[in-house]
């Protein structure tokens, strides 16, 4: 289903949960709605479902305005954060609920329910009650139940939030595959950027009720359009005094410019390890954290602490050790503008001396 949202607003009293959100979603896409808690993601989802009425703005499905349609008539499936399974019904009855509402013949219902249970790997559980299932299984029942009436749009509110970290990744891949197979337009809300990046075709980032950016995960990672997006996606260090970083001195000309430096923009090595010696700064190792597959290094440069990674394959550092630090690029922003800047010295290595 093609979805369009125009100038959507929602306020609860004085609180603006959603302000002026507009976007379009193509048919069959899997969209991740990402942002910190309380950013208005769930409100957008609930308004799409018809569970909440927008204060202003339009919601269009297939070009038709659906603002005044109740949730029953929108043709959507909704998976709730806590699954909201019907406690007193068996798995079978839960999945069959939406089909019985449609007054379908019994054998058709049976066929559809059994095929969905097969699809979601719940075969043999049809007579169980929700309290007899694990979190992951409940999640899958909720999923099968939402899919049963063949909705045109699937909305998922923090679908993995209540599941163990270990099963979560497994379930993510499973969900992505399943949605691909069913070919249904889907939107899921999450506050976990890894989840959004891994699962979604496109990500929409929301903060304080505003839509900050919409694009593929790679786009958003590479070209963040706002400081919030830049700081929210990936790990990063904020540097207020950019003039102290070698190669970025000229950026300090603009008043109030702040830099955001990702760990992977920083190269760090023992004396002589980095080739572009002229662009490096002296730094001192402050702390080392073992991250399982690499070291997270905190290094002190001219009074600023930068964070970066170091491969386990390379020689390990010790706290207090003197090292060379090279900052390749930085994301700069001030009140008016934001842009990416490469290290000047790196682009033009020692032109005078040769």
């Amino acid at each position, binding site marked *: 289903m093609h979805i369009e949202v125009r100038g959507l607003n929602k306020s609860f009293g004085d609180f603006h949960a959603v302000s002026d959100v507009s976007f379009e979603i193509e048919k069959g896409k899997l969209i991740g709605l990402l942002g910190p808690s309380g950013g208005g993601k769930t409100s957008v989802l609930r308004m799409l479902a018809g569970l909440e009425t927008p204060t202003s703005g339009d919601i269009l499905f297939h070009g038709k305005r659906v603002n005044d349609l109740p949730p*029953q008539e929108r043709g959507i499936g909704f998976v709730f954060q*806590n699954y*909201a399974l*019907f406690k*007193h019904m068996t798995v079978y009855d839960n999945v069959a609920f939406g089909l019985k509402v449609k007054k379908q013949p019994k054998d058709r219902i049976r066929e559809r329910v059994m095929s969905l249970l097969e699809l979601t790997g719940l075969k043999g559980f049809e007579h169980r009650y929700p309290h007899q299932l694990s979190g992951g299984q409940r999640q899958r029942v909720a999923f099968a139940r939402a899919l*049963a*009436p063949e909705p045109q749009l699937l909305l998922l509110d923090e679908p993995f939030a209540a599941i163990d970290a270990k099963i979560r990744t497994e379930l993510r891949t499973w969900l992505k595959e399943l949605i691909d197979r069913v070919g249904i337009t889907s939107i899921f809300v999450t506050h976990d950027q890894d989840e959004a990046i891994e699962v979604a075709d496109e990500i929409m980032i929301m903060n304080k009720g505003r839509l900050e950016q919409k694009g593929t995960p790679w786009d958003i990672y590479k070209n963040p359009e706002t400081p919030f997006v830049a700081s929210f996606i990936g790990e990063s260090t904020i540097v207020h005094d950019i003039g102290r970083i070698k190669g970025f001195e000229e950026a300090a000309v603009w008043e109030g410019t702040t830099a955001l430096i990702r760990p992977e923009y920083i190269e760090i090595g023992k004396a002589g390890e980095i080739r572009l010696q002229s662009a490096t700064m002296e730094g001192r190792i402050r702390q080392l954290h073992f991250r399982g597959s690499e070291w997270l290094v905190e290094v002190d440069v001219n009074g600023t602490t930068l964070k970066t990674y170091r491969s386990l394959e390379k020689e390990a550092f010790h706290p207090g050790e003197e090292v060379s630090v090279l900052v390749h690029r930085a994301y700069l922003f001030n009140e008016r503008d934001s842009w990416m800047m490469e290290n000047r010295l790196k682009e033009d290595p020692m032109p005078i001396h040769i």
Partner: protein
Amino acid sequence: MNVRLNSRWWSFGFRSAIMLYFVILIVLPITGIYVQSFSLGLRPFWDSVSNPLAWKAVLLTLKLAVIATILNMALGTMVGWVLVRYRFPGRRLLNSLVDLPFALPTAVTGLMILLLLGPGSFVGEWAGKAGIDIVFHEPAIVIAMLFVTFPFVIRAVQPLLEEIDASEEEAAYTLGASKARTFFRVIFPSMLPGILSGAMLAFSRALAEFGAVVLIAGNIPGKTLVASVYIFGEIESDNPQGAAAVSIILLTLSFAILWIVNYVQGRRTNR
């Protein structure tokens, strides 16, 4: 170590105190009733129970208690629902009024009904003209039972309703279910254990009601004489064995109901 020893002694003390309390206040009197009713053997027991006035009193009590309980189930479900689900002026006041019957002495309840519906009152006169007898007839007894047992269903339903997750209803809506269908298929089944256990408690309380009923029933043997008043009468006429015989019928019924309530609630918590 010391703390653990202390806590063990404490727990032993508490447990024995509670057991003693239970035995003295509940087990002994109940056993006494059973012993008393069979004190002259099985034959006199059967005679006391098969006395037409006795079994008519028991049957009348059962019938009226069933009527009161059914009314209570309907009213209690409605009031519980409204008090939990809707916000409106006066809600808190109504909610606290619900407990009134628990707080009032039942004799006061009887007097209240007598003043309100009895001879000389506005309602009494009006009903009399319409050819309906209230006080000293069965309707008054039902009203008294209804009044006394009013809070049971409401107080049993309210926590269940509060516990229902709003998203369960919303899920039903997104699956295409109408409001009515959502109520009967999703909400009502969750309320049902509360309605049933509340109704059971209301029923056994209605069976036992004395204070409110004795003032307004008229106590005509075979007509408006309920079991509890019959027991009182037997004691007054110095026939403790007959009183005990009818008592154990009520007692056994109450036990059965208590057991059913426990069973219903046990099934609920198991889920």
